[in-house]
């Protein structure tokens, strides 16, 4: 019955590898997001999709590429991983963008790049 789920929960990998994180929501929401939380707990938005269309694309390296195959899924692919990519990545969803709508967050994926 998990509303927003992410896989994997933990990801440990070597520098230079390519990895993906998957996110699914079963809330029927139209909008999904990716956030990065660094080691100091600072949270920053990376991307947002509304109905499979990219609506927010923050200044992140182009090694990060989101993909939304449908409204319920938003995946994050990261190429050529670097040490600085180590963080917790949260997926979130909301009914609509640009409205006073609470975002529901997934459990997070802790990425460690060695």
């Amino acid at each position: 019955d998990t509303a927003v789920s992410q896989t994997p929960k933990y990801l440990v990998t070597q520098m230079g590898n390519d990895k993906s994180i998957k996110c699914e929501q079963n809330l029927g929401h139209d909008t999904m997001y990716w956030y990065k939380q660094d080691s100091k707990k600072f949270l920053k938005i990376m991307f947002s999709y509304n109905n499979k269309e990219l609506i927010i694309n923050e200044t992140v390296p182009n090694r990060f590429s989101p993909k939304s195959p449908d409204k319920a899924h938003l995946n994050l692919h990261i190429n050529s991983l670097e040490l600085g990519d180590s963080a917790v990545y949260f997926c979130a969803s909301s009914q609509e963008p640009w409205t006073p709508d609470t975002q529901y967050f997934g459990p997070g994926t802790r990425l460690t790049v060695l």
Partner: protein
Amino acid sequence: ELKVEQNPLFLSMQEGKNYTIYCNYSTTSDRLYWYRQDPGKSLESLFVLLSNGAVKQEGRLMASLDTKARLSTLHITAAVHDLSATYFCAVDGKAAGNKLTFGGGTRVLVKP
């Protein structure tokens, strides 16, 4: 660029006492949110404040918004151990680029 600042960054509380966390933001924003994050866990929505003077309460937590001062407060009444967590405020709205911008978080530790 919108900036959201919380203080204090860390708050050590004694059970039974009252405390306040402050959230300042730098530009006009339409909405202010408070979230709670337990260690190693996800973010849980606490409150959404939409207008000047808005006040919301849930249990021992009460949040208020002063849009003129660009300030929100999260007041904790008679702190209990279960409230130990990190609390984040976040704002969004047209002036904020329609994206949620978070404060740095306030880590709360309630001691017996």
